[in-house]
């Protein structure tokens, strides 16, 4: 994304501690993953708050709670919101 600057660190959603707000930078894992995540409102640029970390992750996206299963949460790259 154009707004990111070089000091930003990206990491997998899986590794984000609970209570942190992050911005999704990329979703990988094949066409069906990306498409499904987009259907549910998770795409590059989406602001996400991690409600529960670890393997399966619980996040807040625009007011609704999503669970991202283990495996998929490692395929979502995020950047910590300043």
């Amino acid at each position, binding site marked *: 994304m154009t707004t990111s600057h070089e000091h930003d660190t990206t990491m997998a959603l899986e590794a984000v501690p609970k209570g942190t707000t992050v911005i999704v930078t990329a979703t990988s894992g094949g066409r*069906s993953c990306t498409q499904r995540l987009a*259907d549910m409102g998770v795409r590059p640029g989406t602001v996400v708050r991690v409600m529960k970390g670890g393997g399966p992750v*619980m996040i807040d996206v625009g007011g609704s*709670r999503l669970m991202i299963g283990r*495996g998929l949460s490692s395929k979502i790259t995020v950047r910590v919101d300043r």
Partner: protein
Amino acid sequence: MSDTQEQAKTLKVALAGNPNTGKTTIFNALTGSHQHIANYPGVTVSKIEGTLEHNGVQIDLVDLPGSYSLTAYSIDELVARNFIIHEKPDLIVNVVDSSNLERNLYLSVQFMEMDIPLLLVFNRSDIAKARGYTIDTEILASLLSTTIVKTVAHKGEGLDELKDAILHVGLATAGHRPAKIHYAREIEDEIGRIVPMIDAVPALAKAFDPRWLTVKLLENDSDIKERAEELSGNDDVVSAALDAALRIKQHFGDSAEVVIADNRYGFISGACQEAVQNSIEVRHDMSDRIDAIVTNRLFGIPIFLGLMYSVFKLTFTVGEIPMQWIEKGVALLGHAVTAIWPQAWGETVLSILVDGVIAGVGSVLVFLPMIMILFLAIAVLEDSGYMARAAFIVDRAMHKIGLHGRSFIPMLIGFGCTVPAILATRTLESRRDRLTTMMVLPLFSCGARLPIYTLFIPAFFPPHLRTPVLMSLYVIGVIMAALLARLLRATILKGDTTPLVMELPPYRIPTVRGLCIDTWQRSWMFVRKAGTIILAISVLLWFLTSYPKLDNSQLENLSEGEVAAAQLSHSVAGRIGHAIEPVMRVAGFDWKASTAMIGAFAAKEVFVAQMGIVHSLGDVSEDTESLRSILQREYTPLQAFCIMLFCLISTPCVATIAATVKESGSWKWGALQLTGLTVLAYCTSAAVFQVGKLLFY
């Protein structure tokens, strides 16, 4: 469209939207009790239809399955999409959760692209307000060129306006087409090239809106691709679209479907920027507080196990009571029919009716109370929002066996009855997950296997061992299911574990109406599916166990029970039992248990009845104690355990196989389930029997 107004007065309306938007509440509020449940052709997704009349116009409303998108990712979404393509409703009423507008509008935009009149219902407008959103529906409506109605369905607010709007938009002859999404120029260019190709193939242009078809082909939608090839008879259009998608990918550096999704979201956020203001940022509500406890690392699993235990305790203790009534009722009906049966109509027909039909249907009905209670409990867990959390909690464990948290719900249902459990797998999005779950479901010991355990266990095991033995059977089933799932995922159903994204709806108190509909729908599916098949098989089995008949000369000096036993031994089933005895002996079976096992194929609990007959006791439902003492004489505890083990693993009942065939769409999977599990059962009980013999005797 043009003649709608004259002949008039019936509108076909599809109600659609994301899950958890209050769509069903609106459906119920609009149609009241005028509802009708059917199935969509070819799939077992239930189709809920209702009618209402407003200002002299009849509105036929269909409640489409909740979906996030029209990408046909799951069967529910495919059904929703196909309904709109094939049935071409006069109007789509799209229920939108106003408190989560952008994501909800993603589906709306896809409806807009289908070029069918669209009415947006902004439900939960109270929650949106509480969360600080101010939505200017007028601006938004003009940006999207649709009509928008605000509602708070659970309070009944806005429903009259909604009815008026349905008529207004639905009966309008023109000018109510939603706005077109304009994609990036490169995509529009490609669309511009392909649309004329589609127009040139009448079969395609007739079946689909050309622009919509083009977008779907660019998105590489496999279902649509197949249909398009089928209809056009060649792959010209499809391969042109594939080439176009490739060019788009080269240009944007992302695949076409990602770019298309980006464009749609861009359109939505552009519209929302103008029409929606948000004053509050973060929220902490009741749901979060409950989640903090329920999904806690420490308490999460104990709470989950506690709830599951309560569900089963409730199912089995409360279900027991009406079960006995039904058992008695069926027996009474059998006796009554026998008593009033005119001699002239013959014994054979009477026997088919009483021993085949009434006994067979009875064997299904007996389980109905238990199954209804289990389904009710599951509906409470689902509607309250807990079930989604349970899937979250077990996701980690399920991953170890190559499945994910969602497969857990069918498995839970499987402890009640495997048939509705197989139907419940339709919420699984990937076919591999679905098939794996289906294949292992019979290993979750269903309610019908319980009578077998309760017959054998008290006969062979001292009181302090009875619960552990019973538990061990359930646990063995679950462990075998886990191993088998892993095995399947490593061999014939190999592939990456599919990603799980699942919405965790806010907690809420379930409505009585919602619970009743859910419970009724699932139970009815069980009765109808299991009922018809078991009825047919019961009659067939009646033949197998009654023919060929013995001569009267062979039956002299025998008691009534001995006659029945001799007859069964002489019958086709008995002969099969005798024939397979040498093989079954290795696993601890004699011919009697083998014969009873053939009956168990119709329905597991038939095993108990058949054991009664082969041991010359006649009808044993009244008198299980005497059967237990005979069993004690004839079998060792080890044999008893092996027989129970075999019943647990082997030969899912006919209804299960039928459900698997239907749901998987091929005989192959049903056949594999039947033979695979039977072989597994044989090997397991043979191994246990042989090892046990060495150890104990």
